[in-house]
């Protein structure tokens, strides 16, 4: 078994490029290599046409105007451009306070932290134990000088879907620019920017079967949202993001988003069926806990903690499947996931969590293999675990005096 490649269940980390996408990209690396900014010859015209077609496909998936789509290198850049760009543009007229959530992606958290170093103040809302933001707590965090709020649509670790409509309406009423990181959402939830009260939205291609290294930022035109450029140069993308456009990457993102628009309804049904099968299989195991709300959640994600099993040995045990662990095992120590900690999970449960993420190429056989593997390995590790033995003997582990070391 260990001689073959592990079963891929880490689609929230990245997805393979769909072969249909790769096929569309290749001619734009070789024959149609022109610079889309070249106006004086057909090489440039062909490239520009491809870029604009792709822009239209990206806009269509989220029901936006193509002129509202700005190409970037990915969601990290989109988040930085949106947050720093809008905060700095509107700080003088509105103020220097930002609201975000403790479970946001690091690209949002760290961009806000950078603004704090520049003199902004920030509130990092702690979500409810199910991972969702409480609207009253959000309202309570608003100050007269709140200039920007950033809340992700779908969480990368636990897959929960925030109520962007409700939060956005509160932002509108309080004249706050609202940014949404939708990197994990495209192709998974319906996004309609015609009706959503959102000013800025970040996208990337590689979570939706497109290539890495390409993303986009939605910048609302009505009412017009202004951002300060973070990258200066040739004034591409209406001055918001300079740099020669990566035609082949952009073509890939456009094709990936076209496929997502056409296939997401059927695909999500199939993935929900697989997720439910995985969920039912794993919940047969005693002392397992689902992290994050199960109803307000994309079907692609299942995040489960296995009690009384240590995180790193769990990772070793499941090496035949490619999953992501709540423990980032660095060379020196195990760091429990900050997202799970923000939900109030203990260090032990945060350590022993696994994120399973299912996608386009996952099969029922993959899911069945995973269930059997986990049942087997969790059982084996618990046979080894003195904590499991104590739990089975009825010892309350929270009452034991441990000698910390």
């Amino acid at each position, binding site marked *: 078994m260990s001689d073959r490649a592990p079963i891929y269940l880490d689609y929230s980390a990245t997805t393979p490029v769909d072969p249909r996408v790769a096929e569309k990209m290749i001619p734009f690396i070789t024959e149609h290599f022109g610079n889309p900014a070249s106006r004086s010859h057909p090489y440039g015209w062909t490239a520009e046409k491809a870029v604009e077609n792709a822009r239209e496909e990206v806009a269509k998936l989220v029901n936006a105007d193509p002129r509202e789509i700005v190409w970037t290198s990915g969601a990290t850049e989109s988040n930085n451009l949106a947050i720093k760009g809008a905060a700095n543009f509107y700080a003088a007229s509105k103020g220097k306070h930002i609201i975000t959530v403790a479970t946001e992606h690091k690209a949002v958290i760290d961009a806000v932290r950078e603004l704090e170093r520049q003199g902004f103040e920030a509130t990092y809302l702690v979500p409810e134990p199910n991972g969702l933001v409480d609207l009253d707590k959000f309202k309570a965090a608003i100050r007269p000088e709140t200039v920007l709020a950033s809340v992700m649509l779908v969480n990368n670790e636990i897959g929960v879907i925030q109520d962007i409509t409700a939060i956005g309406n509160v932002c509108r009423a309080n004249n706050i620019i609202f940014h949404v990181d939708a990197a994990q959402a495209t192709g998974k939830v319906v996004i309609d920017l015609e009706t959503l009260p959102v000013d800025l939205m970040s996208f990337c291609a590689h979570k939706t079967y497109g290539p890495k290294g390409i993303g986009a930022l939605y910048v609302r035109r009505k009412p017009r949202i202004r951002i300060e450029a973070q990258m200066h140069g040739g004034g591409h993308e209406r001055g918001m993001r300079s740099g020669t456009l990566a035609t082949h990457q952009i073509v890939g993102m456009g094709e990936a988003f076209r496929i997502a628009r056409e296939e997401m309804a059927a695909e999500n049904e199939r993935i929900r069926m697989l997720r439910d099968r995985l969920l039912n299989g794993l919940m047969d195991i005693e002392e397992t806990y689902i992290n994050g709300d199960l109803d307000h959640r994309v079907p692609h994600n299942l995040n489960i903690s296995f009690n*009384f*099993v*240590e*995180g*790193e*040995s769990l990772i*070793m045990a499941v090496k035949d499947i490619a999953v992501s662990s709540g423990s980032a*095992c660095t*060379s*020196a*120590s*195990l760091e429990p996931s900050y997202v799970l900690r923000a939900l109030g999970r*203990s*260090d*032990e449960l945060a*350590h022993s969590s696994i994120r399973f993420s299912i996608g386009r190429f996952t099969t029922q056989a993959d899911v069945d293999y995973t269930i059997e593997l986990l049942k087997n390995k969790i059982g084996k590790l618990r*046979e*080894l*675990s*003195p*904590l*499991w*033995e104590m739990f089975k003997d009825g010892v309350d*582990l929270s009452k034991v005096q*441990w*000698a*910390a*070391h």
Partner: protein
Amino acid sequence: MAYSDKVLDHYENPRNVGSLDKDAANVGTGMVGAPACGDVMKLQIQVNDAGIIEDAKFKTYGCGSAIASSSLVTEWLKGKTLDQAAEIKNSAIAEELALPPVKIHCSVLAEDAIKAAVADLKSKQVGSKEAA
């Protein structure tokens, strides 16, 4: 993390997993570590009338190195006297398993577990002599 073949072998096929009767007069139990730190080792030794360790069992909640360290010492302990057991050093465990520097604490924990088990057994023996 790249583990040595010996660590992987002990992790895949741990030796002497289990529990002995912790209330028996000839069994010593050492439990060290804490769940919040990611390691808990329970090591038990059983001596015969001649004072030789005739059985050793362990259970460990921890990483592969912690499991391997405790599995290895159960092999080493058998046939030793309590004084010989107490002389087992973490450096010998770390060397045998080729533990990387960040995993040395696992071998320290195993040494602590041996010392705790020996101390537990000695306190029982003192107690039973006083009772007699």
